């Protein structure tokens, strides 16, 4: 094939340039085709829009009780902590934690009794136990993930087990009294 077309040096340069330009255009075209094929995988407009903030009244949650709810399809725990649980969470030496974070930074000031966290284990996404009265709460009065044995404390922080991070806090704020807006 080498001697197919290049007879003179000038011709071969022109051919090389042509080949190069054609090849480059082809690569650009293929790249452009990939854009819609890949971006369709992203959340569609309705899914994004449906993730609008939701309002929730925490008043009905009794002390020691926890509820589950969903925002953007993600599970959220809201826990009304007891005095004992709050004290436990604040007594621990923050620097000794696997993912150091003070309990103060994980709740809203003046509403220390309410802990709002995403409800999927940061290891591989199972739902930790600890919301229902009879559930095991792990060794730290928080949650225990039955899948791979991660223990979370009463601030939702990882204390023992394979999970690397604390349960994350969703974006939320208290609007008035015990009402919060998530998102």
């Amino acid at each position, binding site marked *: 094939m080498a001697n197919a*077309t290049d007879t003179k040096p000038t011709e071969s340069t022109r051919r090389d340039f042509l080949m190069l330009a*054609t090849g480059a255009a082809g690569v650009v075209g293929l790249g452009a085709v990939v854009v819609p094929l890949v971006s369709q995988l992203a959340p569609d407009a309705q899914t994004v829009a449906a993730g609008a903030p939701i309002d929730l009244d925490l008043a009905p949650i009794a002390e020691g009780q926890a509820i589950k709810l969903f925002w953007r399809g993600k599970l959220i725990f809201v826990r009304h902590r007891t005095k004992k649980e709050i004290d436990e969470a604040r007594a621990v030496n923050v620097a000794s934690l696997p993912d150091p974070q003070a309990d103060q930074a994980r709740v809203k000031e003046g509403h220390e009794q309410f802990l709002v966290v995403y409800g999927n284990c940061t290891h591989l996404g199972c739902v930790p136990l600890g919301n229902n009265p009879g559930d095991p709460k792990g060794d730290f009065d928080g949650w225990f993930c039955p899948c791979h044995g991660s223990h979370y404390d009463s601030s939702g922080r990882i204390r023992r087990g394979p999970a690397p991070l604390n349960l994350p806090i969703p974006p939320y704020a208290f609007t008035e009294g015990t009402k919060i807006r998530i998102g």
Partner: protein
Amino acid sequence: MSTLSFRSAAFGLLLAALPLTAQAAGERVIPPELSWSFSGPFGKFDRAQLQRGYKVYKEVCANCHSASLLKFRNLSQPGGPEFSAGQVTALAATYQIKDGPNDAGEMFERPGRAADAFPAPFPNEQAARAANGGAYPPDLSVLAKARTYERGFPRFVFDIFTQYQEQGPDYIAALLTGYKDPPPEGVTLLPGQYYNTYMPGHLIAMPNVLNDGQVEFPKGPDGQPQVPETAQQYAKDVTAFLMWAAEPHLEARKRIGLQVMLFLLIFGGLLYYTKKKVWSRMPDGTPVH
């Protein structure tokens, strides 16, 4: 030569069959072709027109027709009426949307959000029929693409090149202003029937709903409406709105289309010369031709 004559004879046979098309058009009155800002390869929606059209839809059409595929948020997305996000949120909040069940297991009403669909005027088809003398006002979401008329040969071939595809909008705009009251001689209407020139068969269950001055349009700096507040104008504006509703990504489609076509022209040109170069010689160097 004989091939040619045979071929032309065959085409002649085809042409002889053509007059049949005219009869096929039958009872229908072909709506006039209007000029639309969104037609043609560079067509775009006229934002002001879509906003006016939405107003007509909201104040007139939405009393009987649903548009369930439309969400409030669509009104602010690019390529549409492009109301601001704030306007849309405020607009949505003026509607009460049924939601639930709540913790007590009851359905409740809450103010609308941008992600909510346009609420339907009737809870179901039966209720819609009951309220409209047995006729079901069709959903308007994709209506502009769901209505057409036969173009016939050879016009449908030309349409490929002229890109005429506004049969739906032309028909809807004509229908909205195509009422004849009283009906022509010899047509008797039953109660709940109206005579419309452009409706196939002419009998329609929808009354004439657009009257001059009925919907207030935004005023210009001189205090006068920017476009006349006439039934004709309402019909055109609401039709443009319905076309956008049916094809909300029309602008993006035509814009990307131009890019794609230009790219293909360049790439095709490059390939043509590459092909010529490659085919100039055989592998052993002798000319191909």
